[in-house]
């Protein structure tokens, strides 16, 4: 066995791969080879580190050095300076946003300080394509414990005691779901992993499958043991090629090592996993629609009951859990239910992975204990709002969720508090909005998404959402009237009450929650026909302040339609008849002379 003195971990998540992390890895290999160090230093491509804002990430151990925004060209310098001479490269280290000091290791960074990594424990630490690294991190030990020392009832009790709830968004107690499926009597049962991550901006399931696929496979086998199923299916969208590739490798390795297949660990327990592909329809994240899609039927939901626990895939009892839910299971078995239950709030235990996006400094994937406040997430971990602008709201729960405003900044985040605040946990997308975002336009954006994704089976969702969208379109075009706001609310409530599945029942949430929290913005749109954030093109026009304009001609040169005229060194003028309101002049002006009115 080769003993390595040093490990170089290169992020191999899809975000960093897009920034040439593959190339970084080969450059490391080449340079190390040149110095004859290939046998002493191991270069590994890992899963996502989470700090996507600063990617590609390179971590060097045991020196515990965390390099950010590394390019393939930096590799030569890292090897020559750090590896050979032991001098860390200051310029690639993280700089604290507040103190402006460099921080060498991840523990010292605000981004990581408040995080507790359970579901993401192995992401950015092990090589996801090597089962032995997973085994070295207690991998498959939980499965071994369950099969040899515990009855299925014991395990289910443990999961129930841990307080784990479904991480896909609904928050249904996982242990209870397992118990219900166990109680259904059938010759055949199924374990299904829901990897149809559909919320715009959420990518935790993809990252777990890319960074630690074995944790999901192990948990599925444990679930199979508990409910009495010999077959597992992963339903994953075909848009996730890297996750699929790594999952395939993981399944093959687990079979090769005898951790999937017949007579696992000599206990007589059989379990195997197959992959089913989805075409990326949002509604297929709903469990009944997902099951229909797997059966080869149209991805449309059906009324519950019967629940999948009674009649699921091919009419057999089926247990459907989300990727993140599964990845928590092995840790709960290894560390105990009490340990897990000690993290979080009274009714929401453990941690939750959130995908931070939008107008925030540190975009990325974070895992935080339940009960953390929005303020801690946005200002401590996220590093505050981009360009020093003002926080306006954060959208959680995707197209089914709602917006949380400033008044919720100090609310502890858990399933119940978010629902009480008019939003929901969802799968964990968090889109941060600043004062330049128009809330009416945001509501319209999410509704557009639901319109695209509605399967069309039930009328309220198919036609109701269309009408809802038309009203919003009317308002943002400046043709809205006061009565429209009441229509919006009434129609939203009808759609919520009468839709068949979760998609329709939650689709008006972004409208309702923005109506509740930002009524004044709606009011401004319909009464004075003004967009307070200056986003709705039909309601604004750009003009140049002759006092501030220096006549630098920058706007004139950048205007795509030639709407700006004026002499050098004298004030310019925008011809409203020609202007297409693209906003280029506003962005380009260095003297704040272009105004939105």
């Amino acid at each position, binding site marked *: *066995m080769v*003993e*390595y*003195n*040093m*490990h170089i*971990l290169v992020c191999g998540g899809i975000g960093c791969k897009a920034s040439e992390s593959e190339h970084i890895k080969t450059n490391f290999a080449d340079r190390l080879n040149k110095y004859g160090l290939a046998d002493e230093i191991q270069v590994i491509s890992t899963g996502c580190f989470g700090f996507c804002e600063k990617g590609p990430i390179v971590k060097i*151990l*045991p*020196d*515990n050095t965390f390099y950010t925004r590394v390019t393939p060209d930096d590799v030569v310098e890292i090897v020559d300076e750090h590896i*050979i*001479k*032991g*001098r860390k490269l200051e310029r690639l280290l993280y700089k604290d946003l507040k103190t402006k000091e460099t921080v060498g290791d991840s523990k010292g960074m605000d981004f990581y300080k408040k995080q507790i990594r359970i579901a993401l424990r192995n992401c950015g*630490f*092990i090589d996801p394509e090597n089962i*032995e*690294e997973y*085994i*070295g*991190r*207690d*991998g*498959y*030990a939980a499965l*071994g414990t369950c*099969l*040899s020392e515990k009855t299925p009832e014991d395990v289910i009790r443990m999961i129930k005691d841990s307080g784990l709830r479904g991480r896909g968004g609904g928050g249904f107690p996982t242990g209870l779901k397992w118990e219900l499926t166990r109680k259904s009597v059938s010759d055949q049962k199924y374990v299904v992993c829901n990897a149809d991550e559909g919320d715009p901006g959420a990518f935790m399931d993809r990252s777990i499958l890319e960074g630690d696929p074995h944790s999901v496979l192990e948990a599925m086998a444990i679930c199979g043991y508990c409910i009495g199923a010999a077959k597992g299916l992963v339903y994953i969208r075909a848009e996730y090629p890297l996750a699929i590739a790594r999952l395939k490798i993981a399944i093959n390795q687990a079979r*090769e*090592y*005898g*951790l999937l297949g017949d007579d696992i*660990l*000599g206990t007589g327990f059989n379990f195997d996993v197959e992959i089913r592909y989805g075409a990326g329809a949002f509604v297929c994240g709903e469990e009944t629609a997902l099951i229909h899609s797997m059966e080869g039927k149209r991805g449309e939901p059906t009324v519950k009951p019967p629940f999948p626990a009674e009649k699921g895939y091919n009419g057999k009892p089926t247990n459907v859990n989300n990727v993140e839910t599964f990845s928590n299971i092995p840790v709960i078995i290894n560390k105990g239910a009490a340990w897990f239950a000690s993290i979080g709030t009274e009714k929401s235990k453990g941690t939750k992975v959130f995908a931070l996006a939008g107008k925030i400094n540190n975009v990325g994937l974070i895992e935080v204990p339940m009960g953390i406040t929005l303020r801690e997430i946005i200002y401590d971990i996220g590093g505050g709002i981009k360009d020093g602008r003002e926080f306006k709201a954060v959208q959680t729960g995707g197209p089914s969720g709602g917006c949380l405003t400033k008044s919720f900044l100090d609310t502890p985040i858990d399933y119940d508090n978010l629902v009480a605040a008019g939003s929901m946990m969802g799968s964990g997308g968090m889109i941060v909005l600043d004062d330049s975002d128009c809330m009416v336009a945001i509501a319209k954006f999410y509704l557009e998404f639901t319109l695209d994704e509605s399967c069309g089976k039930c009328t309220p969702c198919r036609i109701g959402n269309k009408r809802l969208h038309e009203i919003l379109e009317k308002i943002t075009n400046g043709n809205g009237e006061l009565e429209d706001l009441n229509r919006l609310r009434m129609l939203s409530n009808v759609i919520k009450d009468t839709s068949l599945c979760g998609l329709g029942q939650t689709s008006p949430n972004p409208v309702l929650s923005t109506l509740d929290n930002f009524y004044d913005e709606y009011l401004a749109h319909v009464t004075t026909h003004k967009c307070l954030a200056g986003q709705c093109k039909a309601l604004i026009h750009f003009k140049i302040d002759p006092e501030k304009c220096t006549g630098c001609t920058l706007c004139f040169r950048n205007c795509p339609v030639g709407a700006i005229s004026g002499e050098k060194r004298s004030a310019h003028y925008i011809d409203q008849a020609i202007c297409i309101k693209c906003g280029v002049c506003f962005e380009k002006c260095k003297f704040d002379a272009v105004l939105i009115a």
Partner: protein
Amino acid sequence: MNKIKSIFDLKKLQSEVQAKIKLRENGDNPEDLIQIKVSLATCGIASGAKDTMNYLIEELDHQGIDAIVTQTGCMGYCYAEPTIELTIPGQQPVVYGFVNKVKTLEIIEKHIKLNEMVDGIIPVAYSTIDNS
């Protein structure tokens, strides 16, 4: 690869492969562990620092002592190469000069195991950014 046929097999494999990623686990929690920096600049390497480092890693591993061994640049004691800096958690770092295999073993046996300093310490007459 032979199939893992029992819990015993799984545990055996786990203990084998754990060593491979132990360095990463330790590196993630450096403050609780003994840290040894070996000066691996040109002069150090020419005086056999590479052998010292390999021997250190081998011997610590052999004796089952958890420690982080990293390389570093020139410490400036060119007359005393190979030099190493030893930090026991909670204590001031100590620099040793002329560390050959015999000296390495002595440092492990006395300083690391019994916390008794041995001959060959170079007094540190400077401060670094880390400790200033």
